[in-house]
């Protein structure tokens, strides 16, 4: 087949072009894009006239001026997130303990029923103490915060606020050598990291897409919100007394989000200086008009699409995990259960990073889904003795304290949950998106090392200063 352009000609031109590109000090792409933008701007200035008293437009502009301003953008963002968490934490307490009561009440009857049947103790153990209890815990601990948090978040989204967050973060991502659209994929990751990883397809350059994929996990997803909120409200907040407890807890969750974002930027920056070197590319971020949220519709939709969806997934995974945990906690080798053996074996290392062996075991068992880490933890603590009944959220606190927890334990559990490897589903998605075993391993090991490192440093500092 005759070639349109001869091969040598083509190579000659390409060499020529690359030589010309080399001698340019400023990026040519930037120059081109900038000129086009300038020209568009100048023409629009000349031919477009705006009447000032048109309400919506002016309202949008004014609001954008505040919400995306350098001075107010971040404080407002933090305040809004804080309010969302505060409402979530304050509102979830009561329904949570009601649900807990309900499940415990059910458990008593189930136990009586099994006794009436004359079922062997292990059947009762596996089905009631294992399966039923873990499902009960997942529902009562996770449902109320999710039923409040997701609709609130959806309302912010509906109002058109999320693109403004992306806009505020855009310049930081550019400075970190990453793509501005990464802020959008990050916002997606707040919902679900697997979805966030898929969303990275919107980033065209493979280098920047890889950075976005590898760091998506540093923002807490649906599965980890309940863990963070629960930890913050039970231990850190609770310790400060009731009045400020809720407020404190919401601050702490906001703080965790900030740590996650900071880590995202830091890791993006490090990657773009080392493994994934390069310069960020240009793009235009759309700021859609603000809309009055359709409150009823948004709430209903978010409860069905998100809350119940996540809950269902959690229950499906928690049920077998509960059985496995119960079995591990009740099969004895020597004088200890298998679970205790594993936990004891992990204990020295876990202690060094401010956790304990059971927590680490729970994280390992929780690889399939982050939602079940805390339920597994509760299960394993319960099976080791001290308490046999739990009918109140407040008792969770004493359960943890009985197992030697301090605020450092809770803090590091939050940090570890925030920073450690992504869940099984997300890893699988990463493998599919990158089509590379190597990068999938990086996506798991890199965050794990960071989580261990950060927890280790925090634990050593806190202990070194004698704060616990």
């Amino acid at each position, binding site marked *: 087949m005759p070639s349109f352009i001869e091969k040598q000609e083509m190579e000659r031109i390409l060499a020529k072009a*690359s030589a010309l590109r080399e001698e340019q000090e400023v990026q040519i792409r930037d120059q*081109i894009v900038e*000129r086009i*933008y300038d020209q568009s701007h100048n*023409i629009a200035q000349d*031919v477009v*006239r705006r009447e000032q008293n048109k309400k919506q437009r002016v309202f949008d502009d004014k609001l954008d001026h505040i919400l995306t301003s350098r001075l107010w953008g971040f404080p407002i963002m933090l305040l809004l997130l804080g309010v969302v968490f505060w409402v979530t934490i304050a509102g979830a307490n009561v329904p949570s303990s009601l649900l807990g009561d309900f499940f415990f009440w059910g458990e008593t009857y189930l136990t009586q029923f099994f006794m009436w049947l004359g079922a062997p103790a292990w059947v009762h153990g596996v089905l009631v103490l294992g399966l039923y209890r873990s499902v009960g815990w997942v529902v009562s601990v996770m449902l109320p915060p999710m039923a409040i948090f997701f609709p609130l978040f959806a309302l912010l989204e509906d109002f058109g606020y999320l693109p403004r967050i992306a806009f505020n973060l855009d310049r930081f991502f550019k400075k970190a050598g990453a793509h501005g659209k990464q802020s959008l994929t990050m916002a997606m990751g707040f919902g679900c990291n697997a979805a966030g990883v898929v969303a990275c397809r919107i980033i065209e350059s493979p280098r920047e897409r890889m950075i976005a994929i590898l760091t998506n996990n540093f923002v807490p997803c649906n599965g980890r919100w309940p863990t963070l909120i629960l930890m913050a409200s039970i231990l850190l907040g609770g310790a400060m007394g009731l009045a400020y407890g809720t407020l404190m807890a919401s601050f702490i969750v906001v703080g965790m989000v900030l740590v996650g974002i900071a880590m995202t930027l830091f890791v993006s920056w490090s990657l773009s200086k080392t493994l994934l070197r390069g310069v960020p590319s240009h793009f235009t971020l759309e700021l859609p008009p603000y809309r009055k949220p359709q409150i009823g519709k948004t709430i209903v939709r978010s409860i069905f699409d998100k809350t119940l969806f996540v809950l269902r997934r959690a229950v499906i995974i928690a049920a077998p995990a509960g059985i496995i945990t119960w079995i591990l906690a009740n099969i004895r080798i020597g004088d200890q259960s298998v679970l205790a053996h594993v936990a004891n074996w992990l204990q020295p290392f876990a202690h060094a990073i401010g956790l304990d062996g059971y927590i680490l075991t729970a994280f390992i068992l929780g690889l399939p889904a982050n939602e079940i880490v805390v339920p597994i933890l509760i299960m394993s603590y319960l099976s080791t003795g001290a308490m046999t009944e739990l009918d109140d959220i407040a008792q969770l606190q004493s359960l943890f304290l009985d197992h030697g927890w301090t605020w450092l334990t809770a803090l590091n559990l939050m940090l570890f949950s925030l920073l450690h490897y992504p869940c099984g589903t997300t890893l699988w998605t990463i493998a599919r998106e990158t089509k590379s075993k190597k990068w999938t391993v990086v996506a798991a090991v890199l965050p794990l090392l960071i989580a261990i490192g950060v927890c280790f440093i925090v634990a050593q500092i806190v202990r070194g200063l004698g704060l616990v």
Partner: protein
Amino acid sequence: MRSQHLFHKFGIRVDLPEQKVIALAGNPNTGKSTVFNALTGLHQHTGNWHGKTVGYAQGNFTFQEESFLLIDLPGTYSLLPNSAEEQVARDFICFAKPDLTVVVVDATALERHLNLVFQVMEITSQVLLCVNLMDEAKKKGIDVDLNALEKKLGIPVVGTSARKGEGLIALQQGIYDITSGKKIPSPAAIRYSEPLEKKIAELEFYLKPLLQGSINPRWVALRLLDGDEKILQEINDWFSESFSFSFQGGEGVAAKCLHL
């Protein structure tokens, strides 16, 4: 020859050989599809671009006894081939060489949308600008001076409110005027900085004889300087095949014809 090319490369069927091919480009959410529907009515069919998961629609309309084939390109923000949509839009404008490319922009966000207009004007001079959503702009108190815009850009400009059916006759007239040669657009090319212009000129000099008038050499030079090294290979692939137009893959084409 061209209709074969269009079918072979893009899966687009030209009903009549003398039909004028019009590409409709624009950012997403500009009412581009509304313009398309308003012009073609029921005379359209939809499908996917060859080998891409990007949807497309084509339709016919007649104006002053001239028949036009309108191709609705995917909505894109730019023509830098970053995504499948942008690739399709760019390839069509640059390789299928439509008789005219109509760029639809949003009157309420003209500045942002002009970027695409400039990018299209760098590829081809056969461009008409359709400023849509004039009604919405009016509602928001935004006034666009279309005459001034036409002078600044050097291409015909038509204002429409496609949802209300306003300005469609003028749009058709504009399309007719350009494709029949009554009006010849002369787009205001963007001038870059002196050193960059020098580089462009240098590459253009080499490219001109190679491209044999197939594609605007200035645009190819810009893409090469931009770092798009694949562009030459792509040009080669497009034009080599059309030069030695063969019956490879002819079965597939025939099967599709029967199917259609």
